[in-house]
């Protein structure tokens, strides 16, 4: 069943067009990987789906759960079940992760017409979800991302994903800056959260992450378009051959 459907999406920053007609279908229970060279629009696509107003959508639509979400505010999209794992998570000094997540969980529950979780209910939920990413107690008491190492920040992103239990999770370069142990913890966390009714989009440069999170589909985003889609083996092919052959294929295609 289709969860997200992107049709002919064009988006720009200022005068610069970044996305030049993206088409993408994502179904429930699926894991998609979006790969491609730097600066070709991967993070822009993630930002546009989550609602970052840094980007202007000039054409096309993003249909999520049968609703066009482009006019929806960021926090409403989140409450509707969209989660973005950030490449560069922001530090919020003086606001503990516990308080931050309690606010987020309860604001989302309010949107869905549910009562807020009581303090003990919330603490139970938090203890349970901390295990997903092997998070230590001390981390949870610290201010959001303040003074965290690269690995701690990414673990914290997956912890937040576990707490918020999204239907569509987009992980933007979650593997960047991770050593092999942190990568394993983060990837294992993502796999634990996988269910038949949710979907995950993994944006990455490297095939390495896909050894742990096995995608159903691999897409290549190049020059603002998805130019190739294949099974998980496509990632291995990209790893060995690089992106030049795709450029050549595209050049040939245009020549014909």
């Amino acid at each position: 069943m289709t969860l997200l459907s992107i049709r002919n999406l064009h988006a720009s920053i200022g005068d610069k067009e970044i996305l030049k007609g993206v088409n993408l279908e994502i179904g429930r229970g699926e894991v998609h990987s979006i790969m491609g060279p730097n600066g070709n629009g991967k993070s822009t696509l993630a930002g546009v789906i989550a609602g970052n107003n840094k980007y202007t959508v000039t054409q096309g639509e993003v249909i999520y759960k049968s609703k066009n979400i482009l006019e929806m505010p960021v926090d409403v999209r989140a409450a509707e079940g969209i989660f973005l794992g950030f490449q560069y998570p922001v530090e919020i000094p003086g606001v503990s992760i516990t308080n931050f997540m309690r606010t987020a969980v309860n604001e989302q529950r309010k949107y869905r017409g549910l009562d807020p979780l009581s303090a003990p209910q919330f603490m139970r939920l938090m203890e349970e979800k901390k295990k997903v990413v092997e998070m230590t107690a001390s981390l949870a008491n610290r201010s959001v991302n303040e003074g965290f190492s690269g690995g701690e920040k990414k673990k914290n992103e997956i912890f937040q994903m576990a707490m918020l239990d999204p239907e569509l999770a987009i992980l933007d370069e979650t593997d960047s800056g991770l050593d092999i142990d942190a990568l394993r913890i983060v990837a294992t966390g993502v796999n634990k959260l996988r269910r038949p009714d949710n979907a995950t989009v993994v944006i990455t440069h490297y095939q390495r992450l896909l050894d742990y999170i096995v995608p159903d589909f691999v897409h290549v985003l190049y020059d603002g378009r998805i130019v190739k889609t294949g099974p998980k083996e496509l990632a291995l092919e990209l790893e060995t051959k690089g992106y030049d052959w795709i450029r050549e294929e595209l050049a040939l295609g245009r020549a014909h």
Partner: protein
Amino acid sequence: MNPIVQQFKDIQPRLHKDEVWKNVDYTDTLGEDLALPGTADACAEVSPHCCNIPGFEADRMVIENGCCRSPRRTDSQGVLTLGLREALRDFPQLVLPRFGTAARADNPYLQFNNSHYTDGLFIHVPDGVEVAKPLQLQSVVHAGRGLFLQIHNIVVVGKGSRVTLIHCDDTYDNAPSFSNNVTEIHAAEGAAVEYYKLQNLHNAAGLLNHTYAAIDEGASFRSVAVTLNGGHIRNHTEVALRGPRCDVQAHGLYLIDQDQQADNYIFVDHASPGCRSRELFKGILDDSARGTFNGHVLVREGAVKTEAYQSNKNILLTDKAHVETKPFLEIYNDDVKCSHGSTIGQLDEQALFYIRSRGISERTAKTLLLYAFCDEVLHEIALDPLRERLSDLVKKRLHGEQTLCAECALRCSTPCNGPEAAFYIDPAKL
């Protein structure tokens, strides 16, 4: 108008071109109804207020309507605390060599205070004493009539001694008042002084608050001033580094709204080599509030290997709020590391996006970011219970028109009622 008040009011026009004093216009707060305090202004009781810090023990001294109400005390460590008038009478050898000497001599408001002060506190910490409990100076105005006050405090900290001072300025009633208060801090070689100020005054109160610290070789001075409310408050701080290897940190946070005004002036005089100073002043201004920051770091010719950093950051919530900022370094040798800067701005868009992407509403996201903005200054308070208390007061100040604690993201440790939550800065306006 009372002739003494008039005499004070006449100082300002003479100084309007002086960079140091040009913003000191107290015309609005120096009204006809101000009078000098008399003996009849003693109050029956000093009720607990914002200065109370749960779970925190301090030796408390009270200055009420300009008079010292606390009895003379010498504790087991030899720390002497008493009223300044009494100290001048009984310990002139301790007081006179220091009186008025921590500041530059050409200071007209200090001169005025020197000749008109009613009382104040004198604290003497002998050499080599680590004062166990923090000392809390509580300055309260509640006479039920308009008062014009001049308080002069002197703190002498002996060689190698350590002391923590908490200084609260509070008003209990809504009568107008004006205070021109001086606190001198003399820190001898190797002494360490922490000085925290909390200001929570009502809108008819004016306060010109002078802090003069003179510190000797290897001594450290750390101050954090938090201004939560007040009609017109000026924190005028001067720190003289009189020996090598001193360490100075002077920070401030001001959260003001309505027609309030908060000015911060700081002068750091690097007269000796190998010293370090750091200043961080941050403010949030709502409604028609006005603020100024005037920071001056002077690095003299002989003060080589100086490190000096100065920063002022402001957030304006409305178009009518107004801030002027002037960070200034004056350096006379080339073996220094110095920086200064100021910003007047809005909240970071990408940080807002991050918070909202978790399903948190725009308004709550702004509240969280405003608190995070303040936290950088609160973080400098080394005393845990005091930091928590001030953090609570800042949270209450920031929660806007939101009245339900359960819906507030800031999670104070105590509910939002009582006098401290009478005014709100409203992030919804941003």
